[in-house]
């Protein structure tokens, strides 16, 4: 193992540049450890995000050697074979400073895709009995563990090419709600995901599915939305 690592970090906003730092190598070092070392011991003006540092919150997602991933779960040994590392902010999102991006567009698209639960009951009514092995519940459960880390959004080329596209995460959440018996979103939500920026823009590149740290499958969820919206359209429940 080399004693030192040469790390390029993105500094500045959109019109920034990569700057190189020398960081001591340690065993079991993660990329987050490297970024933290730079901020604590070399340049305190470096901006970056993290929270749990153990791979459950999704806050530390960055672009590592061209690939969006959770830095706390990325071992340096796995990605810096030649002793060099390049770390930048997540792509497809506005850069605030250095390694932090503005997640607002990501969440706004979540709202536009109607990834919001629409309740049908009040506390005064009986609780809905949903069996976990109910087919619709199975579909929802397979897609529900999204923690909005933004890796899929950063990886998606269709997001890159099409400003309006909602992206894998927002559409996957819409899919879970389409399969939720308690939800009243109905054809309004299907209409929302069938319009410009909706599910039909997906070309099934599957970068999202390959890179999701929660092992979710947005490509399959979006395919499900394509089927539901097509059926609704042919039945006249939603418009073109």
């Amino acid at each position, binding site marked *: 193992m080399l004693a030192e690592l040469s790390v390029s970090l993105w500094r500045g906003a959109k019109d920034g540049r990569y700057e190189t730092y020398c960081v001591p190598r340690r065993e079991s070092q993660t990329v987050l450890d490297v970024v933290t070392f730079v901020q604590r011991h070399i340049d305190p003006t470096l901006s970056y995000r993290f929270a749990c540092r153990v791979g459950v919150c999704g806050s530390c997602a960055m672009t590592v050697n*061209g690939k969006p991933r959770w830095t706390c779960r990325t071992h340096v040994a796995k990605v810096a074979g030649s002793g060099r590392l*390049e770390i930048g902010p997540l792509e497809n999102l506005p850069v605030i400073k250095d390694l932090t991006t503005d997640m607002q567009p990501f969440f706004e698209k979540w709202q536009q895709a109607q990834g919001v639960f629409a309740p049908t009951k009040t506390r005064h009514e009986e609780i809905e009995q949903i069996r976990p092995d109910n087919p619709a519940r199975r579909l929802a459960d397979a897609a529900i563990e999204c923690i909005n880390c933004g890796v899929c959004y950063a990886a998606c080329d269709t997001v890159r090419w099409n400003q309006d596209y909602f992206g894998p995460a927002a559409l996957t959440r819409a899919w879970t709600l389409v399969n939720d018996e308690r939800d009243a979103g109905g054809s309004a939500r299907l209409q929302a995901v069938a319009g410009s920026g909706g599910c039909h823009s997906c070309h099934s590149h599957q*970068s999202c599915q390959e890179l999701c740290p929660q092992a979710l499958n947005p490509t*399959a969820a979006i395919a499900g939305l394509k089927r539901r919206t097509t059926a609704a359209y042919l039945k006249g429940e939603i418009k073109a």
Partner: protein
Amino acid sequence: MIARGKMHRGSALWIAAMVHRLSGLALAIFLPLHFLALALAIKGEAKLESFLRWTDQPLVKFAEGALVFLLTIHLLGGLRVLAIENLDWRDGQKQLATIAAAISAIIAFIFLARVF
């Protein structure tokens, strides 16, 4: 810049989608030319015949082989999309994509073997 986005942009399924798009564009450009060539028949059989004999050249035959490849791979790529969108999710898609490319190459090769 080092090791730029190789992992997800170089993956078999991403390449499959890109090949599908590029082959579609190539076929879209080819199609008007194809129609113009066929319409030579309006001027009489002799015109079409001289065009067909022009296509006997080896270089043109290679180009035709490439077209067969593009058409086949675009068809198979389209089947990939139709399968993902209408059938249940299946694993092993990367292997299928590679097999599709191989089949297209084989069919194009058979075409060339038969015309030479």
